[in-house]
């Protein structure tokens, strides 16, 4: 129990109702935790939060806090009302990188909890929206201690500031039948190639990787990462016709017509009279819908790989942007495949570092300089899969047409030659 208990009539309202209450958790730390430091800190925090609820304003400001050797990874918070709530006046968050796929043993979680009780507030989030474990609330001093302790047993800080950020990947291949990629491998290859860029913010602005194993994109990578890697396949979808029949037996033909074939965005999946399904794989855009509805019967093909989309982000400063397809398909099987992926990421980051304005994301940079200049900068050839529609406006100097056309014919000839 802390010395002073702030009244929290508004926050108390959040203890009602069936959903687990974070306020009740705070109060447990305040009232029941054996460490007085924690009682005091969280008690004070509750006071400040109640003050925010009453005045409808936040009272934190930033500052500069980092750990020895690094430039980022901490979100420093100093209270603007520290006089009234002194025990929580320093309340920094450490952003710690999770394991790819967000797996933990309970032992490890307990160990992390131990360290955090030692050095922090006892409040933690799995995970922040970027994917970090957020250890919320400690002092400048303890930041270093806590980091030192967990760093020794395998944990490292994530990104904050203008740097490569912590990445995320979906559960994917570990459990999900839709997975077309080794999401964990991709995430670790990418982000661990850039540890230096994670820890020492020196880019124009943040840069995020996200990995989803299939176009369902359970990681929101397409709009929430600068560099989205999404699994897909190139050959034919697999159809288990006996499972199709079983599905029809259970659900009826009409269900398949209403929920599968008529929902296909390219109208390329058909229910035949004999209760089999046919897919025109040439027209299928790998949207996943039919596979989602009939996961037993329909599965991705064998020739798996990934697509890469660049430039997704949220609102600041030109409005939300979706990523843009720049690599329609890339195999990821051999070590060389992964190396070339990492190389490409490195080219993108280098180009970004050199060409983006301060506080400009990749998507904004591409918007400003045009996709073609970006592609040329990173050495990627144009492809019609990059557009949903070719040029609409005739306002362009096309004097180089013949050479560009020649390039295409040559590429096609090379491809044909194998």
């Amino acid at each position: 129990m802390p010395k002073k208990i702030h009244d929290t009539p508004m926050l108390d309202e959040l203890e009602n109702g069936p959903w687990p209450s974070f306020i009740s958790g705070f109060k447990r730390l305040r009232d029941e935790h054996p460490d007085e430091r924690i009682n005091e800190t969280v008690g004070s925090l509750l006071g400040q939060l109640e003050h925010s609820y009453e005045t409808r304003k936040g009272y934190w400001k930033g500052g500069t806090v980092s750990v020895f050797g690094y430039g980022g990874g901490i979100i420093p918070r100093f209270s603007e009302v520290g006089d009234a709530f002194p025990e929580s006046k320093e309340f920094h968050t450490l952003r710690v990188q999770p394991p790819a796929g967000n797996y933990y043993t309970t032992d490890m979680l307990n160990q992390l909890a131990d360290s955090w009780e030692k050095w922090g507030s006892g409040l933690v989030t799995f995970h922040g929206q970027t994917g970090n474990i957020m250890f919320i609330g400690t002092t400048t001093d303890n930041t270093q201690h806590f980091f030192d302790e967990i760093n020794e047993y395998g944990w490292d800080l994530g990104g904050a500031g203008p740097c490569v950020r912590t990445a995320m990947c979906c559960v994917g291949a570990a459990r999900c039948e839709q997975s077309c990629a080794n999401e964990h491998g991709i995430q670790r290859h990418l982000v661990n190639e850039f540890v230096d860029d994670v820890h020492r913010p020196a880019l124009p602005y943040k840069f995020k990787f996200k990995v989803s194993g299939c176009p369902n994109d359970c990681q929101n990578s397409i709009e929430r990462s600068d560099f989205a890697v999404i699994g897909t396949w190139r050959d034919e979808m697999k159809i288990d016709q006996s499972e199709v029949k079983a599905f029809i037996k259970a659900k009826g033909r009409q269900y398949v017509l209403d929920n599968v074939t008529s929902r296909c965005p390219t109208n390329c999946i058909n229910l035949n009279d004999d209760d089999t399904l046919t897919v025109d794989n040439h027209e299928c855009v790998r949207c996943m819908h039919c596979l989602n509805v009939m996961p037993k019967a329909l599965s991705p093909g064998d020739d798996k790989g990934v697509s890469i989309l660049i430039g997704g982000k949220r609102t600041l400063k030109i409005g939300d942007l979706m990523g843009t397809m720049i690599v329609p398909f890339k195999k990821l099987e051999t070590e060389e495949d992964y190396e070339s992926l990492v190389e490409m990421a490195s080219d993108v980051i280098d180009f970004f570092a050199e060409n983006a304005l301060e506080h400009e994301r990749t998507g904004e940079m591409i918007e400003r300089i045009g996709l073609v200049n970006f592609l040329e900068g990173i050495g990627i050839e144009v492809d019609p899969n990059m557009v949903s529609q070719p040029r609409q406006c005739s306002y362009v100097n096309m004097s180089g047409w013949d050479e560009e056309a020649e390039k295409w014919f040559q590429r096609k000839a090379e491809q044909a030659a194998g």
Partner: protein
Amino acid sequence: MALEDMRPPIESGCPDGFQYIHPVMRKNYGQWKFHEHPRPGVLRHVAHSGDEIWTVKAGTQRILDVFSLRKLTAIGDKYADGYVRFTIRSNIEYMVSDESKVQPIIDALTEAGFIVGGTANSVAMISHTQGWLHCDIPGTDASGVVKSMMDELIDEFTSCNMPNRVHITTSCCQINCGGQGDIAINVQHTKPPRIAHDLVGNVCERPTVVARCPVAAIRPAMVNGKPSLEVDEKKCICCGACFPPCPPMQINDPENSKLAIWVGGNHSNARSKPTFQRLVAAGVPNNPPRWPEATAIVKQILKAYKEGAKDWERINDWIERIGWPRFFEVTGLPFTKYHIDNWRGARNSLNASTHIRF
């Protein structure tokens, strides 16, 4: 004319069409029930009253000499009750209430050298603009391009074998007085204007032309001690917009003014919402008198469309279904960096999804 001879105009505006409409159409105005396509070039409309109107449609050279016009009116007088109309594509239509008059009209038109067809799912007459014949800014001659192409597409005009209507348009400068089209053949300049500095002072209103440039590439400048203009060639998008207000901005160039081909423009609301046409081929030589290169590409596109599209799919619908990558594959046209738009709102044309066809 001397002032005293001047008469004030009668500002009658747009004449009432009713005085010229066939009486059966006037009678059944707004009371039509359905139509049919008995054969290429012929429509049969049936009114709720049971009355019928048979329309025979024929292609002409659009720029009619009075001899040709009188041939057309003579046919109308003799076989078609004296009523005609012209379509938005400058085809002439004869409307009669009696089926028996149809064949004589067709025969007379054919004999007089006009081409019956252009209805339903045919390749319609190419709509075009003035060109070298009359305009002050053209990069090519629209009538010549169209005559050359229609010579080669005539079988598609006189039959109805396309998946749906095909509307082709052409324009003779980048202003594009012609429409968008299922296929559009338009001028594309590929060099910034050369400035005839000696003429600028006399001819051009400098502030106007500076304001007219869509990318602010034109600056006033002193050249040889005289006020003239200067173009930032890096910025210039070769649009030619500066030429009409300032003819010394010489944009037309016998070698570097090329043709470009666009597809999928569709103003009808049928099925999908109206769509803008999209670039597919450029760098096409502006090659009078017969422009064979442009025609070859148009035919390539039509062939792929005819083979690949389902009934009722316009070119935009077909491509929407098969995807643009496949379009370039089946037409054999190259995809280049110029196909990626970089104009305002270009982002909307990028593929912001994993939807890909393999």
